[in-house]
């Protein structure tokens, strides 16, 4: 439905603008407050633009609050989540391009796991990891989140659009199965993988609950867990809290703004229409 009237179009743009301002208000407030000193951040009436901008809070995060350790842990989780994505992609390819016994049943099991509420699996997963001796380890934080049924499902949908003949031709040329997968299938899957990489990155960068449950040791905390800790400890130092939050949010926003085109295409591609 198109609007032909310029006046109406500007009203709608105006409504979107006001809405957008409301939506981004918390972000603006967060960034501006992170540069205020401790007194100014609590001043009434509040100032919008910091009067004496300071980056002191950002230094404090790294010098006194171990945010460097949390950052490294978070990046480790990000790297392993990409390995998980590779496993998801392999599974999606396996389900999309091979015929084998029990395929429907196995795929049904994969889909079933999507319906299980996270809270049901939470306690038993903890018990399983405890039995394996993996609580309070990086492996325990990483393992349960490696595979996501929804990703396998989306990737399989994409794999089914790749022509069989192409794979057959490569096989006749004597290419091994893994050679075909890495040299032929992965480059062809770029559009769907681009979305998956971004969403996987965002999810693992934000990982909070599972590290909170599994890690007792502060050396294993992620940025989110560290930030939650900061919130508990520094009830009134909002400037410091805002700096921590900004540090968590800004990298994600930058990556998202650069790659958002692919996410939108990904939604269009997934066929939810």
């Amino acid at each position, binding site marked *: 439905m198109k609007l032909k009237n310029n006046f109406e179009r500007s009203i709608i743009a105006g409504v979107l603008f006001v809405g957008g301002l409301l*939506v981004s208000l918390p972000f603006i407030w967060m960034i501006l407050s992170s540069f205020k000193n401790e007194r100014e951040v609590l001043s009434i009436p509040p100032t919008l633009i910091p009067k004496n901008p300071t980056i002191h809070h950002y230094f404090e995060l790294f010098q006194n609050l171990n945010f460097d350790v949390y950052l490294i842990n978070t990046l480790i989780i990000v790297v392993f989540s990409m390995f998980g994505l590779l496993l998801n992609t392999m599974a999606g390819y396996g389900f999309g391009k091979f015929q084998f016994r029990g395929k429907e049943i196995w795929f049904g099991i994969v889909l079933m796991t999507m319906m*299980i509420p996270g809270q049901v699996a939470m306690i038993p997963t903890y018990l399983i990891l405890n039995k394996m001796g993996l609580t309070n380890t990086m492996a325990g934080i990483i393992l349960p989140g490696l595979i996501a049924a929804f990703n396998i499902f989306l990737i399989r949908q994409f794999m089914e659009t790749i022509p069989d003949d192409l794979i057959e031709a490569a096989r006749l040329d004597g290419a091994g199965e893994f050679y075909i997968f890495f040299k032929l299938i992965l480059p062809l899957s770029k559009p769907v993988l681009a979305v998956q990489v971004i969403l996987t990155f965002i999810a693992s960068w934000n990982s909070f609950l599972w590290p909170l449950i599994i890690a007792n040791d502060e050396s294993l905390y992620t940025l989110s867990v560290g930030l939650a800790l900061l919130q508990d400890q520094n009830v009134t130092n909002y400037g410091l809290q805002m700096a921590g939050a900004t540090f968590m949010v800004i990298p994600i926003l930058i990556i998202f703004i650069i790659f958002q085109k692919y996410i939108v295409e990904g939604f269009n591609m997934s066929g939810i229409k």
Partner: protein
Amino acid sequence: MHKLSSRMTPLLFIGPAVLLLLVFSILPIFIALGISFTDMNLMGLANWSQVNFTGFENYLALIKDKSFLQAIGNTFFYVIIGVPLAVISSFLIALFLNFVSNWLSTTFRIIYYMPSITNIVAIAVVWGFLYNKEYGLLNYLLSLLHMDAVPWLDDPFIAKISLIILAVWKSNGVSMLIFLAALQSIPNTQYEAADIDGANRWQKLRYITIPSMSFATFFVTVTTLIGWLQFFEEPLVMTDGGPLNGTNSMALFIYQEGFQSNQFGYGAAASFILFAFVITATLIQFKLRKSD
């Protein structure tokens, strides 16, 4: 030899993923069901002989547990207010985005999507500050309008509303993109035909746009409903269920029993009650869709 290896190939591809899913998604369901009939707690974790089979005792205790019943009530409150708000607001945003020019639409799409990718703890920190009764921006803005300060997170009822506002803000992005994809796939020829028939804008919305988006609406409603039934992170990081248990949800109750009180059996039983709600709600939705 060659035959064997080609039969093994698909298993090599799906094997690792399926194995991890079996261990960390399927197996936990059976364990959860098992321990929901026991009195397992922290002592049982160290020594399994301490775990006793108690039958339906946990379930019977749960339906008498005042704080669990309150958590169920709160969860329904979240669902009844939150789901329609979330679905309608993301629908309206998508509809409006579809009206404006391309570059405006792209810019606002990014802005409206931003909260969805933002870390929940960062959100809690920032919104906790906005909602602060004395130093928060929201009460300051209200004071400019000569309105009284609102106890955003200090009153059991208002705190529920505050969490809903925050959650709608956060969740709009994804639903909006799904609606937008659906809107863009409606062929323009349908609207042109309606124009020739002299349909007004409201009629076009009512008879073309909304029916064409029935699947997207169904999809968004089902996923939103399931999400709100499991409402968890917002009360966890913002209020920890308080004040006076006023913002506690079923999912948060499970977490508190399981990991704060270490009552694994009791928490697992509560998680199966939540599971039952989720399945029932999903089945009802699919039934309604079929009868459409």
